[in-house]
């Protein structure tokens, strides 16, 4: 009985926390003005919010095969989503001519790769 209540409380707690992270992400996307800043807000929702929501769902569903599948979903999205954001950021850095107006760059000469600190 106590374990079921604990499961319910923790599950819904994580779920609601994840949802509020999503709300923060939405506000950030519409409040920020520059691409890289907005992408940062979106990435928070994609990783932290999604992870917390799925963790809540995993706790709620109990110890089943579905739980393992949800864990795999978290693993896949945490692998894929940051990398795609990284590719978009690289595209912005390489194509934007006036990027120095928004952030300072440090160039790594030997790797021919540009990283950006905003």
């Amino acid at each position, binding site marked *: 009985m106590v374990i079921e209540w604990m499961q319910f409380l923790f599950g819904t707690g994580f779920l609601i926390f994840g949802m509020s992270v999503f709300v923060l992400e939405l506000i950030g996307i519409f409040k920020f*003005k520059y691409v890289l800043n907005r992408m940062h807000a979106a990435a928070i929702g994609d990783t932290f919010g999604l992870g917390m929501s799925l963790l809540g769902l995993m706790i709620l569903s109990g110890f089943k095969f579905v739980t393992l599948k949800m864990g795999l979903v978290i693993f896949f999205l945490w692998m894929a989503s940051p990398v795609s954001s990284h590719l978009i950021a690289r595209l912005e850095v390489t194509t934007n001519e006036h990027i120095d107006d928004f952030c300072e760059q440090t160039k790594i000469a030997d790797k021919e790769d540009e990283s950006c600190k905003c």
Partner: protein
Amino acid sequence: MSRPISEEEYKKKLLNRVHLWIRGEADPYTDNIETKELHDNTPNEEVLERHQEDREQVIKDVFDTENNKFYKLFFRFYKVASVMCCVVLVTLLVITASYLPPKGDPTNPVNNEVAAKYIEDGMQDTGAVNIVTGMILDYRAFDTFGESNVLFVATCTVLILMRDDKKKAQKNTVEKKQYEPKADSILQQITAVLFPIIVIFGIYVILNGHLSPGGGFSGGAIIGAGLILYTNTYGFKKTQEFFTEKTYKWVSFCALSFYCLAKSYSFYTGAHHLESGIPLGTAGDIISSGLILPLNICVGMVVACTMYAFYTLFKKGGF
């Protein structure tokens, strides 16, 4: 507690702004988000004139309207002919539509026994737990065969249109490098982990097509997406080690011909009330439901190859 407020005070309130936003009179986000300016796309008179001249020149060169009497006549009556064609088509379609049964009649051909038969006897006849797969790969297998062939024909058409043949390739050998993606070590590390997972998931979806939602089309699309990811990460040279034009041809050919032969056999024996000799197995096992599993694999291979072939053909005009 309520007290009247002036109009200016009301305009500053949140409620008013929300009201304006809902009515579409003011957007709170305009001039707030960084956007690129749109290009002015109104066509220049000079450009329009030049296009018109080009078009006339092309028509003159291609059809040789000055010497060819037929094309001269054809262009003269082109508009009349097009209107005539449309009228004939519309008449045919309207006549056909007038023969359709009235709406809402319970004795219409839509409400026949076929749907009920599929749902009631589907599992017994086909051995597939997933009724949809049982339908598309058993009762209506030739329909699915046509769809797979449509994919193959579409790739052939794109091949004809976009192919970078040897004559063209000699001309622009310098630009070959632009097709190769920029080597990104982060992407490469992640793809090394994700690519096998994506392919295994695709195979799982294909093999479980008769047990759970999914099947050849969706699983093939997943594998094709995995192949595209691999190409985008490591470049075309790495992909060519295991996937060339020859692979595409042979995989498509083998899958389509196996599908055709297997289903022809099964329909032939079925139509003549003969024993086909294909065991259905127990419903729910991976190896069950007769021909559905191998046909699913065939469809999956065709779809995966088509997805990848489209991508490479549009990207660089060749495998």
